[in-house]
């Protein structure tokens, strides 16, 4: 069957999950028409970027069973690659391509070096070393202001075809202007779909099976004859590439990049949370998790606002529920999710209960 080939034989295997994914796809396709306004479009674009980012992290965490804290570093490299190239070389397609290509090259090299240094020894060093490298990189990006714009970041222009001033038609279709911004949205959607399906192909390939074998029992996988370091390093390089491309998408959509938008540790935490909630070891979890999380994020802050106002007579309680402290509640949610819900939403929907990933 065609669909089976497109999804690399990894079907959702659950009526509810299929419905959810289909609804998500339809919603993303129709957002410009269904919900007018810039805000909805921005949320939808962020969902797409995060689907790619989280799915690429799942390749590492869920499929290979290694924890990296440098994932936002690659995300940032992609975003900065485009931002710097377009600032320096002007808004041309060449700049866009050059920025993406050099960002991909840099991510590949960095992932290779980190992987060879840390995965050679013990997989757990990887988590610590990536944390160290990522924090150094974050400081570098905010201090090297001639290149990166420092804390302020970079605002840049894209080729005219992708900007709102470019009109394809003078008349609006069902109330939507056919401009470059709309084109940009659909390009983003197409690239997201392509990247997601490619990742699906990767994890369901023989290579992906080896990764899962390593996750389940590294000793046995090595005994069968698969070199652990090689597979783990290639997995981290691939995941770095996809994270980098997610960064490119983010920068293209926002036409801005700064340390807080792509490099901050909060994003790393969000990615971790989404992978755990969605379900480790299934890419559909990334899609479902990213959508639910990003919707809940704005919702949670509104809810906290209400709670904080209701509790304003007790200062400490009000401080606990202040919208600025939303990370506290997310952290709590995260810990509870790891305890009681380790297999994530997708395995629940699939009804298989305890999935693998008990590393």
């Amino acid at each position, binding site marked *: 069957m065609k669909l089976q080939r497109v999804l690399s034989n990894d079907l959702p295997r659950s009526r509810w999950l299929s419905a959810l994914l289909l609804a998500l796809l339809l919603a993303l396709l129709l957002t410009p028409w269904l919900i007018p306004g810039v805000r909805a479009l921005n949320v939808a674009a962020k969902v797409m970027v995060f689907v790619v980012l989280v799915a690429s992290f799942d390749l590492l*965490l869920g499929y290979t*069973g290694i*924890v990296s804290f440098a994932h936002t570093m690659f995300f940032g490299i992609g975003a900065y690659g485009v931002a710097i190239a377009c600032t320096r070389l002007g808004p041309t397609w060449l700049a866009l391509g050059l920025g993406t290509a050099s960002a991909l090259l840099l991510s590949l090299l960095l992932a290779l070096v980190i992987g060879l*240094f*840390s995965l*050679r*020894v013990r997989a*757990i*060093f990887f*988590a*610590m*070393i990536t*944390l*160290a*490298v990522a*924090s*150094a990189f974050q*400081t*570098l990006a905010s*201090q090297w202001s001639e290149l990166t714009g420092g804390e302020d970041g970079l605002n840049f222009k894209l080729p005219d075809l992708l900007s709102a001033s470019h009109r394809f038609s003078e008349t609006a279709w069902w109330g939507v202007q056919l401009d470059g911004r709309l084109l940009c949205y659909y390009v983003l959607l197409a690239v997201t779909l392509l990247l997601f399906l490619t990742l699906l192909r990767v994890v369901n390939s023989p290579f992906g099976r080896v990764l899962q074998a390593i996750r389940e029992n590294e000793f046995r996988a090595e005994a069968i004859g698969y070199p652990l370091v090689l597979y783990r390093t290639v997995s981290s390089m691939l995941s770095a590439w996809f994270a980098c491309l997610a960064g490119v998408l983010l920068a293209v959509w926002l036409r801005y990049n700064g340390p807080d938008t792509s490099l901050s*540790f909060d994003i790393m*935490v969000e990615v*971790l949370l989404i992978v*755990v909630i969605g379900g480790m070891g299934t890419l559909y979890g990334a899609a479902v998790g990213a959508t639910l999380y990003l919707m809940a994020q704005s919702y949670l802050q509104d809810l906290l606002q209400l709670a904080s106002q209701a509790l304003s007579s007790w200062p*400490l309680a009000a*401080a*606990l529920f202040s919208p*600025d*402290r939303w*990370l*506290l509640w*997310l*952290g*709590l949610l*995260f*810990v509870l999710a*790891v*305890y009681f819900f*380790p297999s994530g939403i997708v395995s629940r929907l699939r009804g298989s209960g305890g999935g693998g*990933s*008990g*590393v």
Partner: protein
Amino acid sequence: MKPLGIDWKPLALVPALALLALPLVGSASSWITLTAAGLAMGMIVFIIASGLTLVFGLMDVLHFGHGVFIALGAYVAISVLGVFPSWTASPSIAANLLAVLPALLAAMAVAGVLGLAFERFIIRPVYGQHLKQILITMGGAIIGEELIKVIWGAQQVALSLPEGLRGAVLLGDAAIQKYRLLAVAVGLLVFGLLTWLLARTKLGLLIRAGVQDREMVEALGYRVQRVFVGVFVLGSALAGLGGVMWGLHQQNLVPQMGAQVNVLIFIVIIIGGLGSTGGALIGALLVGLVANYTGFLWPKAALFSNIALMMAVLLWRPQGVYPVANR
């Protein structure tokens, strides 16, 4: 003479590095100042790292929430120091120490008690599951940091040194800040006590044996997990102590300080070898010295100097300078 069985090569690294930096720095007086600063920073980092390396080594627990106890200790100290305004403002060092001592003790006590709770509620349910440990301790660290923001506020707070500990001692041309001498003294005291505990007591014997081969010690009938709870509490208390020292060293506090220091601590532990306190000391001194020398010689590279140092050590000894843990 009987060979002592000590591996001297890593020990020689610290003086070798210091001597190597001498011609690069140029003037002897700035070299002395930098070296003293590096040693002091290294000692503070060692205080924090010593407990964590045992936690890693003994139970194979990947604890990413250590930073919270650092920040917690520092914030408790700021509250305690606020109780003795006259003693901290007095120029007499004795009065200053009288104010700092309760702050240190309170920080250790609070961090220790919370460490007990952290171990019970966050770590115990996930023994033996590395992935979950990393995730859940990370979650615990986020919660802790946010709670600190709730209690003490999210903005930066100044933590000034007591009056008598400010300023420097002159050694020829070289100026050595008084506080750095205190930091080295406290660090040496902690190292001495830890060495005594590990080398001369039954408990220390169990800890060292447990780090080397936990299953064997358990097979002999000891409950390593109980020992581990003690080690975890001790490690958290030391992190609290180190946090106060670090806060006084930086002279300001932000709730994120724990996460910042955590990065340094991981580098130190990787350099030293998981589970080795001696290795942690050497790693911490190396990190402190390298940070200060490169900060002086080539400030732009200071960010990456520690990572470069770690990579160099790993090329030489992939398990850290003193590999202990038998895993």
